[in-house]
């Protein structure tokens, strides 16, 4: 990535505390280039979801700045440039039917009904969920819900897409389909996941977050290969990076 282009996401001295939990995020500095696919790893409670809610403008930083494509993120405003795919799809899919849910974002953006219909049709085709269009959301399987949630986010044509545990609870086939979608994506991606094999396959860069601080930032393979670093922060080196003396079947 060129160093001269302005970053897609820039965090400058970002701090955040909840009223009952101080220093959830502690002086974070991070720059993510446009089109970069960054994995955010770290133990539970490291602050990953909080960071996502801050970048999306849902929470307000205690101090510091968040810039998305050089624009200051103002909490409480609608910013369709950034979308977040939630860990629990049921939280994200609040409309009764798939079509209505995917159309919700484009409608909020003030598009005409024709444009909305085209976008919905287009993203449902991209994610391979055309046949789900008229289905009630509560009749979908967990995997279908996740795919529809991604369609709902994609329909807004965001420049930055944030995924919170995208592969959690998915079966092998849906997980593979998800990886395919993520790899095809041309947006800037920020993916939090405990599925390190997914991170290894999709992301070019990894940021390791622990106790509200960035403890490592670098190329995916370099970070995930560092066994001492990974163990020190409650992680495990992915199985596929462990050299095998003998070929085996697992």
């Amino acid at each position, binding site marked *: 990535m060129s160093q001269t282009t302005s970053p897609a996401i820039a965090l400058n001295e970002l701090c955040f505390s909840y009223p009952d939990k101080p220093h959830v995020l502690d002086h974070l500095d991070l720059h993510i280039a446009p089109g970069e696919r960054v994995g955010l790893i770290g133990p539970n409670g490291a602050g990953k979801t909080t960071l996502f809610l801050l970048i999306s403008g849902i929470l307000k930083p205690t101090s510091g700045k968040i810039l998305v494509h050089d624009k200051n993120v103002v909490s409480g405003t609608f910013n369709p440039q950034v979308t977040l795919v*939630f860990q629990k799809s049921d*939280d994200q899919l*609040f409309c009764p039917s798939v079509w209505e849910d995917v159309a919700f974002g484009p409608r*909020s953006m003030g598009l005409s009904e024709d444009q909305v219909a085209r976008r919905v049709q287009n993203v449902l085709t991209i994610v391979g969920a055309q046949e789900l269009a008229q289905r009630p959301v*509560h009749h979908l399987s967990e995997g279908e819900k996740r795919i529809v949630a991604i369609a709902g986010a994609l329909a807004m044509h965001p420049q930055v897409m944030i995924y919170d545990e995208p592969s959690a609870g998915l079966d092998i086939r849906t997980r593979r389909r998800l990886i395919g979608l993520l790899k095809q994506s041309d947006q800037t991606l920020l993916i939090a996941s405990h599925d390190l094999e997914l991170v290894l396959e999709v992301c070019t860069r990894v940021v390791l977050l622990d106790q509200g601080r960035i403890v490592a930032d670098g190329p995916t393979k370099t970070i995930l290969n560092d066994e001492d670093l990974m163990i020190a922060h409650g992680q495990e080196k992915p199985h596929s990076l462990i050299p095998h003396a003998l070929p085996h079947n697992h």
Partner: protein
Amino acid sequence: MIAHSATDSPAAPFVHRWDPRMKLIGLLLLAFTFSFVTNPRVLPVMIALTLVVVAVSRYPLNLLLRRLRYPSLVILGLIALLPFISGFTPLVEWGGLTITREGLQAAILVATRFFCIVTLAAVLLGTTPLLRTITAMQALGLPSIMADMTLLVIRYLEVLSADLRRMRIAMRLRGHAEQRRPWRNLPTLAWLTGSLILRGYERSQGVYNAMRLRGYGHAPIRQSEFTANRKDLLALAGICALSGILIWLELAL
């Protein structure tokens, strides 16, 4: 939550394809007219009208009977006592019980009105998908916030009931036996209810965040998606005329 027999395909009977706004207005008009009827001689006309609507809608009879099952229990419980406690002209005396003419007439009147209205509501609402009915209510002036709340209730009722099912299975797997010594179950049921409320509250925060992220409240007001054609308007005019005839019969007979 989609009406089982609702379809708007061109081959479906007209009642299915009738503009939902017109359908709602027609239903309200008929319901108010039926509740205005007190003359027993008008009741056969009311029943005939209801049966005609059921017939032309080709609404599945078994589904209709299923829909009427629970409301019937309530109304039958209410009207069963009327012939014994109301009125003064004895019709049948048996033991210490007297069935009065006025009481029986009142019971028949209430039951007929109730069944006609509930049947019409089941058929007319059941032939339009629920979401479309709510959108039609919105187009008729129901405030957006109320429509949104209704839709969210419909959407999350299923999620919460799935949560409840899972929690009850988990309880059973750990030895909880429901309905055996119910008083002993009370603390557990209180925990279960509390957990569900907390889960619902936490989920509502997540849902609200998701709604804000996708611009809830920023969408411009949409033009009504409904357009009433000549047939829709004629059908509503027909309902108005029938209501007028019923009122005339009520006053004239």
